[in-house]
């Protein structure tokens, strides 16, 4: 399907890698004192777990190699410097100006805007790049969902 001069590669690691990373981050969560205390509100805990899930997914999917994962990690590192350490990469010059010159169809642009809001890091991408990232993101998300489903199923009381 990909043309010869630019093969689109959206390989995603196996489920194990995702599981590993997720459990890893969960373990880090465990060690936090604020987490294990019962007087913690559920919503906070949920948020933390959710964040842990996303961060682990980003790491499992390729760390800083992918645009969306990189931006995700960056956001997480900004918010909470304790849990996530994000080493800054050497920034490469991106064709940001390209996006300005994107005078595509209005229909396409509207949908692309929505996508950009959904996919992390979509703000600075051209539409074609955005779609690549979306594809990879969808794959990783589905993998993460599977892992979490397994965990929940396994740990839920019968």
């Amino acid at each position: 399907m990909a043309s010869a001069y630019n093969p689109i590669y959206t390989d995603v690691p196996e489920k194990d890698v995702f599981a590993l990373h997720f459990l890893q981050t969960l373990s880090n969560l465990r060690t936090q004192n604020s987490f294990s205390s019962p007087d913690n509100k559920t919503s906070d805990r949920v948020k933390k777990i959710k964040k842990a899930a996303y961060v682990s997914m980003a790491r499992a999917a390729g760390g800083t190699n992918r645009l969306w994962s990189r931006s995700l990690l960056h956001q997480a590192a900004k918010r909470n410097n304790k849990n996530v350490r994000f080493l800054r990469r050497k920034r490469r010059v991106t064709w940001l100006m390209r996006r300005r010159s994107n005078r595509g169809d209005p229909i396409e642009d509207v949908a692309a805007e929505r996508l950009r809001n959904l996919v992390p890091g979509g703000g600075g991408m051209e539409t074609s790049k955005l779609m690549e990232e979306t594809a990879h993101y969808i794959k990783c998300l589905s993998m993460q969902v599977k892992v979490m489903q397994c965990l929940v199923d396994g740990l839920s009381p019968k």
Partner: protein
Amino acid sequence: MDNELIMNTELHPPPEIAAHFEQPSCSSPMLNWPLMNSNLSQYSPPQDCFTWEKSTEQQQKQSIFDSALSSLVSSPTPSNSNFSGGVGGGDGFVIRELIGKLGNVGNSSATPMSSPPPMMNRTTPLTEFSGDPGFAERAARFSCFGSQSFNGRTNSSLPVNNNGKIVNSGKLTRVASTPALNGFVSPMVPAGKFSRKRKSMTKGKSKENPLPTASPAPSFTKTAEEKGGKRRRREDEKEDNTKAPEPPKDYIHVRARRGQATDSHSLAERVRREKIGERMKLLEDLVPGCNKVTGKALMLDEIINYVQSLQRQVEFLSMKLSSVNDTRLDFNVDALVSKDVMIPSSSNRLHEAGLQAESLSHHSYNNNSQLHTNVSSSNMMLQSPVNSLETSTLASSFTHLPTLTQFTDSISQYQMFSQEDLQSIVGMGVAHNPNHESQNMKIEL
């Protein structure tokens, strides 16, 4: 004109000319000619011809022809040249007459002397054929009717300077003179692009800026799958067309398609659109239920919905996770911490992880004999990666991943643990964790 022939020529020309006049000509004088021929099998005196001409005069052009004839008659031309011209002109006479007719139609206000020049083209020394601007076009349009004969006439009868005059008058005349006349097939083709690509017209006619037909700088030529049937000539010209305004910043080669605009912007647009289309196809496979939906907008909506649903699922599952268990999760996590450490590629870490795993297993053995059987099963899994650690190769370290899969998928087998057991394990897990947490952190990144 008929009279002119009769006057100037001998006996035999008329039959020839009559034969030539079988060609499809719509002008009335032409149709009248066979009649005239039958009538004038013998040479009637010129006055009769003149009268006949005048009698048949219906349209304006007749009068114009009359004037032309009179001028011809009056001028002292050698019969030979006229004869040859006449014979020669007979072939092309239809055409010239048509051209003349067109000329009359074109410039109705023109003086009678202006329209005869097309007619008198065949006799060079007479005519001061200054470039009639309309003539070139008309000649071009109508030379297809009798292209062969016209060409023959132009090549043989018309002297060089006359031809040169034709050339100077308009670029289209070059087309008229060439026997190929490819261009006249092309009016069917969309004129915007194809008209430029006529073989004869490449050098002269250019609607765009003059193209440097020289070196191919990185222009836009696409892969073969994108094109309809195109000729090589056109491709080269298109390359020249597109490369002139386009700075060679992008080395993707694009070839413009048949019947489409070839300026750089539209080409880039098309490349972009095709890229997006490719990726849309890719996304289609990922998103379930996208086959029924067609069109970019709907597809994108579907994709957005799918992404949103996945994100919501993650949130829901995380809620569930947080509510369902803390301790159980701790156990699993702790048991697997050593495994986690094995994933990174640094080999020295692997050794530490191996030590970690062993210490964990030792503790489990020491603390609780009840858990021994259960934990040992998990430790069996741990020991296999430990064995792999001995070799300290990355490939071997990944062999434990299948076991991890088994672990995660068959987590239910550990539900037999009671709460106290788990807490004890948690206790020993916690004891180990703070030591290695920093290492874990580094390894993660």
